[in-house]
């Protein structure tokens, strides 16, 4: 069986999905390259989890297509799920089991389960083998979920809001797991998050979603380098935000305003000059500022 490896770990094309009358996904297209860490960014309700459910085959595309390692998750769930280590946002682990039972139970599903690795992770995460799942703290629960997602060394780690509601120590464990997955094994990671600081640290590529649409996608460094923050100064106080075409957002008050631009820096500078302002400072915005600028821009 020598099928050529697909060029992308994930390939989503023109995916749309409606829940009653609301468009949860609107013509979403994205590609996740193997061996990279892909961060899916968006506010709550942007469609991240709905997208992830499509990758797992739990939802069938209404239109468009989804491929994971070249397979259709709905038609070929075994091929897809056998390659993905998934940590859900709700971490629905069986509450009545003990930690050691959970490991043995999960191991039975995966021929490539690595018990030595599972044991190593269990110790590293400080999980008691005889502890009942229902007695675990929120952080321990997340670590148990992460452990069973990692221990069969899946080709892709798929994490839905892995850090949500967790303390910094557990978040660090999760980031370390992501880094280790790509560093030691060259595997692929796709994770969704609204914590941009984490995305900034570990993602190679990212897609930003708002209201079911991908508004921005690319290599993280390219995204950061293509955005500029301009501080504009006007001779007299401006009663409202000056109109600057080419800027995603303008915030400020009085004489000084900050514009965030994407690629159209020169256009924005020319526009600002025409409006009577000059650029007094210019640098790169943080990922947070880029996100907020796009959040404001999509509504106009």
């Amino acid at each position, binding site marked *: 069986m020598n099928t050529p490896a697909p060029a992308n770990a994930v390939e989503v094309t023109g995916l749309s999905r409606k829940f009653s009358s609301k468009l949860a996904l609107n013509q979403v297209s994205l590609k996740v390259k193997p061996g*990279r860490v892909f961060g899916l960014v968006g506010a709550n309700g942007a469609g991240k989890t709905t997208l992830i459910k499509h990758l797992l085959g739990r939802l069938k595309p209404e239109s468009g297509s989804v491929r994971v390692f070249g397979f259709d998750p709905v038609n070929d769930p075994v091929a897809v799920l056998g390659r993905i280590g998934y940590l859900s946002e709700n971490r629905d682990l069986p509450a009545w089991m003990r930690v050691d039972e959970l490991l043995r139970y999960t191991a039975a599903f995966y021929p490539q389960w690595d018990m030595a690795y599972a044991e190593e992770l269990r110790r590293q995460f400080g999980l008691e083998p005889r502890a009942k799942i229902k007695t675990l703290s929120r952080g321990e629960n997340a670590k148990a979920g992460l452990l069973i997602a990692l221990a069969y060394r899946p080709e892709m780690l798929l994490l839905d809001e892995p850090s949500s509601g967790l303390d910094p120590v557990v978040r660090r464990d999760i980031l*370390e797991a992501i*880094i280790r997955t*790509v*560093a030691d094994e060259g595997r692929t990671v796709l994770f969704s998050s609204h914590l941009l600081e984490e995305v900034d*640290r570990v993602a190679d590529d990212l897609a930003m979603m708002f209201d079911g649409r991908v508004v921005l996608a690319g290599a993280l460094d390219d995204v950061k380098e293509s*955005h500029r923050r301009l501080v504009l100064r006007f001779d007299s106080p401006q009663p409202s935000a000056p109109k600057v075409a080419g800027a995603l957002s303008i915030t400020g008050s009085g004489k000084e305003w900050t514009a965030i631009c994407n690629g159209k820096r020169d256009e924005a500078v020319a526009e600002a000059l025409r409006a009577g302002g000059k650029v007094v400072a210019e640098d790169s915005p*943080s990922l947070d500022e880029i996100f907020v600028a796009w959040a404001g821009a999509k509504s106009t």
Partner: protein
Amino acid sequence: MQLHISTGDGLPIYLQIANQVKYLVASGRLAPGDELSPIRVLAHQLLVNPNTVARAYLELERDGVVQKRHGSGTYVSDSGSPLARKERVKILSERVDALLAEARHLEVEPQELLRLIKERSQSIQPKE
């Protein structure tokens, strides 16, 4: 090799790493022939993506700051000194630019600023 990453910064992380290594070389804290931390080790230490560290090292290699030795690691170049001098000048130039901008805001002429620098330099001169 102690580096510090700031994610609130707009500067891409690979550039933060590359700049800080250049600074360490320029200031002599990394000497020619010193080995940089292996990619995986630094990625783990800084809690950043190993691909990002690899990109920073590639950038440093392209600039001639470091050299890869086949199968053994990444080392500070022996020819580090001319570049180190250039880097030092570059680092100081950025500070000087900021100082000049501030002086202009405060309506202090460059001549006056120069006099101030000389004055301060004398006052912080170690006394023999």
